[in-house]
């Protein structure tokens, strides 16, 4: 049996799974061969290539069983909270309650990719006027209409203010369908004025202290709502415990990124790294399992890095990637073209940074919410990207546009100008739709071009 690190397709994985199972593979109760998810409609899996480790198997099974987990949680009497848009703050609060399970309805944006549009979520959204001119997150509206992707949550909590228009408009349409939403405001993050009291946020941005106070008051409203739902109080001690648990996840991901992005030979593929990072947002509706999965991945990459084993050539071009891809297959494509992921900014670096544990917990969460790269300027975002490019030693930047996303119109130009000016590395901007098959040739050409540029620059 193949035990050296490798990327394998689904058929190979199912064969490998049978062999591992015979050898006594230790799995959680949601385990099983990845291929079984095809029967549930996840057709895209048959076009993807996966890491061949048991840790990766567990990661994929955690991700692909979330829907089932949510329906079961609802049956068991847990209260479901749909945390929309804020990508990482409200779930930390929600996880502080034993009786609440938070999840991220926005995650439905990947469903059209995974099901290769057979879920008909876009069709459902189209039927009420939300067409392809909107970001693929319109699948969320389709999910609420069909009721298929996740159980309708007991509470919906959505951040608004310095957020993208398409998501805000789609969330408003969700409310118009009859689902009550608690909206909380996040102001545009700006630099403090000279005589204004300032706060240095985790992640390195600055914000006026009055904004931190305001967001703290907004999160207090969210806390009251969660308390009503759970019928229990959320005191500082409870919230601090929730923060500590979230930080365990964040520390795992931080170390994972550090090892994977800086190792001489890439020890874990880009697609698995993308999924692993996404776990930070809402812990895939199971914080305990998320922690176990990430520890498993960490153990695997530590072993591979120590024994100088990996899944790609040592001369793969080191690429920093901005924005998540609507089609996971493009993460495979990057590697097929001779590149490797060496740094990411998937719109939620604030969900990866460690939440301060030495200040009042609500203050800490307010600071984290304001650290959201999307809440401030693209120039701020670019500065953080530059810092991380240096940290991970990336040699090129790919900015992946999300079709229809309002922030993508202008940010690419600003980010690429700043990165080129400061770091003098090649930059390419591509657009990735939810099913990119018809664009594969174009995307391949552009990614290959940047890989070639990187390799030629090395010779010089």
């Amino acid at each position: 049996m193949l035990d050296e690190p490798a990327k394998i397709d689904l058929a190979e994985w199912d064969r490998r799974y049978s062999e591992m199972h015979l050898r006594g593979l230790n799995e959680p109760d949601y385990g099983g061969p990845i291929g079984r998810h095809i029967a549930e409609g996840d057709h895209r899996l048959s076009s993807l290539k996966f890491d061949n480790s048991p840790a990766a198997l567990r990661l994929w099974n955690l991700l692909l069983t979330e829907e089932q987990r949510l329906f079961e949680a609802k049956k068991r009497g847990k209260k479901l909270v749909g945390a929309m848009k804020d990508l990482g703050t409200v779930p930390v609060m929600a996880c502080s309650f034993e009786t609440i399970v938070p999840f991220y309805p926005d995650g439905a944006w990947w469903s059209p990719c995974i099901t290769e549009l057979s879920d008909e979520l876009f069709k459902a959204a189209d039927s009420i006027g939300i067409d392809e001119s909107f970001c693929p997150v319109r699948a969320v509206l389709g999910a609420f209409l069909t009721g298929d992707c996740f159980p309708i949550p007991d509470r919906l909590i959505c951040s608004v203010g310095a957020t993208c228009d398409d998501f805000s408009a789609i969330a408003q349409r969700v409310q118009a369908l009859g689902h009550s939403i608690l909206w909380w405001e996040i102001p545009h993050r700006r630099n403090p004025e000279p005589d204004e009291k300032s706060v240095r946020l985790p992640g390195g941005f600055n914000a006026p202290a009055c904004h931190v106070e305001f967001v703290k008051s907004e999160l207090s409203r969210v806390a009251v709502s969660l308390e009503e739902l759970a019928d229990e109080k959320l005191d500082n001690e409870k919230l601090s415990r929730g923060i500590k648990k979230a930080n365990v996840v964040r520390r795992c991901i931080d170390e994972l990124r550090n090892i994977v992005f800086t190792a001489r030979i890439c020890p874990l593929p880009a697609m698995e790294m993308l999924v692993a990072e996404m776990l930070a947002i809402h812990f895939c509706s199971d914080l305990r399992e998320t922690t176990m999965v990430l520890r498993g991945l960490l153990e695997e990459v530590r072993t591979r890095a120590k024994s100088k084993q990996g899944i790609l050539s040592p001369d793969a071009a080191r690429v920093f990637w901005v924005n998540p891809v609507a089609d996971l297959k493009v993460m495979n494509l990057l590697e097929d073209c001779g590149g490797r992921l060496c740094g990411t900014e998937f719109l939620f670096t604030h969900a990866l940074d460690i939440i301060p544990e030495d200040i009042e917990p609500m203050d800490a969460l307010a600071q984290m919410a304001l650290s959201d790269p999307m809440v401030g300027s693209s120039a701020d975002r670019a500065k953080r990207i530059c810092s991380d490019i240096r940290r991970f030693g990336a040699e090129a930047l790919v900015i992946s546009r999300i079709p229809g996303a309002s922030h993508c119109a202008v940010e690419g130009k600003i980010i690429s100008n700043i990165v080129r000016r400061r770091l003098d590395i090649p930059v390419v901007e591509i657009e990735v739709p939810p099913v990119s098959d018809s664009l594969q040739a174009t995307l391949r050409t552009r990614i290959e071009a940047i890989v070639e540029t990187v390799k030629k620059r090395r010779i010089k």
Partner: protein
Amino acid sequence: MNRIIYSSPYVPAEWIEAHGLTPERLMPKTVTADCAVDRLEGLCPYARAFLDSILKNRRARGAVITTTCDQMRRGYELLADTGKRDCFLMNIPKTRHEAAKGLYKNEILRLGRFLNGLGGKSPSQEKLSSIMLKYNPSPKHKSGAIPAAIIGGPLMKGDCELFDIIEQFGGFVGLDGTETGSRGEIPPFDKTRIHNDALGELVNAYFYGIPDPSVRPNTDFYDWLKRELKAGEIKGIILRRYLWCDLWHAEFYRIKQETGLPVLEIDVDGDGPLSERTKQRIIAFMEVITCSMSRQKLT
């Protein structure tokens, strides 16, 4: 050179004037080949035209841009990057409660400091009051044969063409619910409150008085819309939006459902006059409303 350019109705002209500067609510022209802002895929044509106008406006001392939509919020960065104009990004909260109003008030005060930096002077209560007392809202409703409504974001110079077509084909604009029309006007100030706390009344009027679909939730916008449609006896609605405008495009279906009226959605690319295709659609729409009214009269 004491003009302060802006376009959003959430920027109080009275506040700018009270600081001794001249507010100029800019209505940009459609862009030409020498636009100072690159055409970027996904960039709203209005935002592009507005930024272009700011950069080319030699009379302006400064500009105020708001965060009412993501396009303008991010468009501000393109402007700030040039360094050619003193500009201020004003955060407009999307929620409507007292703490958010406090945030808006702080922005008004911060705008005041920006204006002071451009040669303005913080006004006294009396000065602000006297300027606010001069405010006279324009009449909201006209009357005529077939009243139609135009709703949407801000208009550009040359958009009177839309109004002309409607009038040419038997209708008139009974409700201008665009951002540059009556929707963007605050209700009359409360004179008593002005005397007690002019700034407080200014903040209150602007924060709560402008119905906008970007507010969350946007129930107030729909309450306003239904009220105005009824008052104006409107027979059809033209939703005029810019290409790439998600906030308005997302509301088209709901506007149809909530109002029960015929609704025509037209998207505008800001590149010049209305296309022939769009004009024909408007004409056909006016014919539909006219026929519908005739049928109603017969029955």
